[in-house]
């Protein structure tokens, strides 16, 4: 079965290219097909690819048949290996990290590569109930016919177990504690009782859970130790170096530009470097040359935000500018991302602007662009 033919994909393949943001298994279907074709290693039961091929899919590279697999995750191979190996040992995987470190992104691609389906998704919020996790009822039918399989509306976990597929749980720690507890049973027993029908669903092999949680949210609803013990944890770090971060931003901006059908905008490299540098310096409270310490703004200034600042800048440049990405196109985006708390952050930003930006070689235009926003 080719990954694209997955019945789980709610939208289905998108032959017309109309979908704004296709699922990973659709967007990268050709890569997955090529990998599956070449993959002669052992696949764990229910897996569409071998662990080795899953790692390749995430980290990218050129295959022996010449297919180029784009890197999805840019970072340490080790971490991806641990994540994939964890799922292969059928322990659940918890991806932890500060906002914008690609937790959701990695989990989507893992699910796409392993199950050919990244759509079994529970979005954790304070309002998440056990029903959203497991199953609910079609009340009209329930009243008319009484409890029956036909009246049951399966939730993502139910479906994942039935089908032997990866289920993703986003923002695990935002869910109320009792909903988290419901997961414990599922993860340890691998069955889902349906007392109303006096039956249960036993998980098919291949079922597993990838959860993501935000480091900064810790304490909102702390993970119970029972639940924590069901997970192996992989902490996704912020990009280690400027160049790595630039690489991430550049790749994602290009991909998004294609997806959003933005006209090509050349010479973005300088501005990408600038955005990344500003974000990294403010995030760490230290300039890259380690000479000046800085106030740290309250916002996260994640790689993800850098991507969106640059993407917006490109849209501006393409539609309103001269078709080249200029400091003016990113200045507003940067200031918007940095100053999220008007009092504290604008002080931090002003100091940064005057103490660092003003005197930096080649940053004059950017400084002027930022100053112009004030007036």
């Amino acid at each position, binding site marked *: 079965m080719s990954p694209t033919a997955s019945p789980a994909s709610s939208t289905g393949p998108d032959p017309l290219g109309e979908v704004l943001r296709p699922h990973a298994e659709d967007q990268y279907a050709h890569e997955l097909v090529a990998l599956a074709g070449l993959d002669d290693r052992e696949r764990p039961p229910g897996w569409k690819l071998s*662990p*080795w091929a899953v*790692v390749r899919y995430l980290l990218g590279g050129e295959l022996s048949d010449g297919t180029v697999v784009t890197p999805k995750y840019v970072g340490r191979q*080790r971490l991806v*290996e*641990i994540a*994939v*190996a*964890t799922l*292969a*040992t059928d*322990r659940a995987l918890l991806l932890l990290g500060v906002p914008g470190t690609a937790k959701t992104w990695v989990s989507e691609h893992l699910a796409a590569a392993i199950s050919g389906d990244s759509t079994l998704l529970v979005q954790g919020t304070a309002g998440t109930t056990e029903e959203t996790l497991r199953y609910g009822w079609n009340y009209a039918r329930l009243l008319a016919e009484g409890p029956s399989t036909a009246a049951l509306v399966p939730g993502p976990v139910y479906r994942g177990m039935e089908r032997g597929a990866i289920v993703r749980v986003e923002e695990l720690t935002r869910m109320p504690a009792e909903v988290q507890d419901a997961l414990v049973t599922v993860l340890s027993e691998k069955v889902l009782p349906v007392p109303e029908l006096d039956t249960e669903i036993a998980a098919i092999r291949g079922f597993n859970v990838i959860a993501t949680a935000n480091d900064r949210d810790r304490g909102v609803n702390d993970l119970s*130790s029972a639940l924590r*013990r069901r997970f*192996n*944890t*992989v902490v996704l770090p912020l990009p280690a170096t400027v160049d790595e971060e630039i690489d991430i931003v550049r790749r994602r901006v290009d991909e998004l530009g294609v997806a959003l059908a933005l006209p090509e905008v050349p010479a973005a490299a300088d501005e990408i470097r600038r955005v990344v540098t500003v974000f990294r310096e403010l995030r760490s409270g230290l300039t890259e040359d380690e000479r000046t310490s800085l106030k740290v703004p309250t916002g996260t200034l994640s790689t993800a935000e850098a991507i969106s600042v640059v993407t917006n800048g490109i849209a501006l440049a393409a539609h309103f500018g001269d078709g080249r990405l200029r400091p003016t196109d990113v200045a507003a985006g940067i200031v918007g991302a940095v100053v999220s708390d008007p009092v504290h952050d604008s002080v931090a930003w002003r100091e940064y602007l005057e103490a660092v930006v003003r005197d930096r070689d080649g940053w004059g235009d950017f400084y002027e662009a930022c100053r112009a926003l004030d007036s």
Partner: protein
Amino acid sequence: MTVHLLGIRHHGPGSARSVLAMLDSVQPDAVLVELPADVEPVLRWIGDTGLVPPVALLGYVVAEPARAAFAPLASFSPEWQAIAWANARDVTVHAIDLPLAVTLARSREAPEELVSEPAPPDPIRDLAAAAGDPDPERWWEDVIEHRGDGAPAFEAVAEAMTTARHGFVPAAAEVQREAHMRRAIRAARRAGHERIVVICGAWHVPALDIDASGALAVPAISVDAATLRAMPKTKVAVAWVPWTHERLTARSGYGAGVDSPGWYHHVFDHPGEEGVVRFFVDAARLVRSRGGAASPDELIAGTRLATTLAALRGRPRAGLAEVLDAAGAVTGGLDVVRRDLVIGQAIGEVPDAAPQVPLARDVAKLQRSARIPMSDQVRTVEVDLRTPIGRRKSHLLHRLVALGIGWGVEVEGRGSSGTFRETWEVCWDPDLSVRLIERAGYGTTLESAATARLLERAGASTGIAELVGVVEQALLSELPGAVEPSIDRLARVAATDPDVGQLLDAMPALAAALRYGDVRGTDAESLRRVVDGIVVRILAGLRAATRSLDDDAAGVMAERLSALHGALAVLDHPARRSALPSVLVELVTRAGHGLVQGRATRLLHDSGNWSVDSVQRRLSQALSGGTPPARGAAFVEGFLAGSGSVLVHDAELLAVLDGWVSSLTGDAFDAVIVLLRRTFGAFEAAERRQLMAVLMGLGVERTIGFGVDVDPTRSASALATVRHMLGLPAVAVAASAVVPEPVS
């Protein structure tokens, strides 16, 4: 007549297992190891139950022990295992590398530095790179260490190294070493050994193959003889020293440092698959012992994850990287695991009879008799100087400090104010063994070495403070041989030092030193004479020394006066009764800085030389019209000396102060407010509250800053103790007398 060349990695556990497998199958009649030839006589100790690895072979230049080289050996070192194997079977062992007598003679240029191997090119890195693995450690672990299967592993190594060395031209030092090793191998064969096993770093294998011919042939006998001719030598002695796993991680001596000795140890003891499980079990026990949680479920998960990771990475077996990755993902708490299991806390032992540096042997003996175990964990040792064992402990620790070896650090303990108690924190670091060797030149016993070093320091120092430090150390260490000469030197320097400030600064330490002398029953009469002389000089120079001081200098001087006063009190020195007060009176009455005058007044007050009347008079002088307000404020600061309790006690002093502040004009008040704030801001909050209450005319709790309800019975027992200490007769104190009289 066969020669088996076993190329190993120093400290490689898999190499060690392969070596053992080879020895068992070859049954050699001679085992040759790549160690300096002159350590050979002490190798027989390997296998002795008293010599517990990790230990190091130490070679040092007899005339200059600080020039030394170390060869650390752990239980998982192939050399260690091979020699132990041979010793257990009475098989001949030869150390075949260039003797230390030669290498140490060569390193004369860098006397302070320990000699280490000239870093060889990293052949393993090259080989790993050739095999497409960026991580040489991992490559070697996979290809060699995980096999542990004897002959095939060594053949693979020999072949790989022959390729790696192709076209390589070794440096001169290495040429000599390899020539020496070849000569030793040829000699062993000439001596009639039938089956010779040579254990050497993998790199050297191609160069030691004396039977090779053609392109691989090694230099001929005559060439080697020429290489080794007329090399300068120095006299070297060899000893065993205890080592630790921690220190094995540093690069030193033979073999590169290993990053994870604890893991290697584990792998050597538990080769095979089940080693991974065991490691997780050990890790779980460790985590639990630190109060963490680690369930069997997690152990299973960790083991499975490590194995799966190894498969995913295409490794034959889970290695350290997989185990750590898995442990991190499953349990967390990696820091302890890393420190205690991956590196390990092992510390070696050397038996008494084994060759040691004489000073080290003496210290080891003293350590045993003082019953302070050598451990690399920090532990606290309480010493009671009234017991013989306590004095032994104290002597040992102080003398080591005198020698510059900080095994123990004296800390403020619970009894530190009492002079018969000392509290130490001790922690043995193998670096200290190294330091001990470096200090071996000072003497063969701890006492003689510490004495010699103190004398050296005394002779070299010209500052009073430094000399007092030496005298103090000599007294604390009870080194009579060092006490008298350093006191003499102190007397001479003190007599000529023109700076009263230096003399003043030395007083507290001198007083303390005299007190130690008393507590320990040392005769410190000569020191007392020196102190007397210094006191005379101080008193004579004090007037001049307090003239024309700026604010900062006056602040320092005020503290010095207090310290002098305190030191004379500790010594119950006669100058305290008349000579010092009359100098103080002069300071107070003549022109001078307010701070100094205020402090002198305070000291006269505290010592009871001045009546409350006189003090009040002097205070109001300082605080009335004729004195500029800033000067008055400085006087107050000096007088109060950081505490307001004197004011709480004495309502009239407070009234003087209060009257002065109230009388200041607005401008004058502005001028002094900063100074006053500084003075009063330094008081305890409780004191400030009490002062406030007094000034507001409120009834004040009559106890000073210690709370409201004084329990008369409990305070009575404290008072009895105080009376005892002051030598006053014990009386039944009525509860009312405990509490100071009401103020106002």
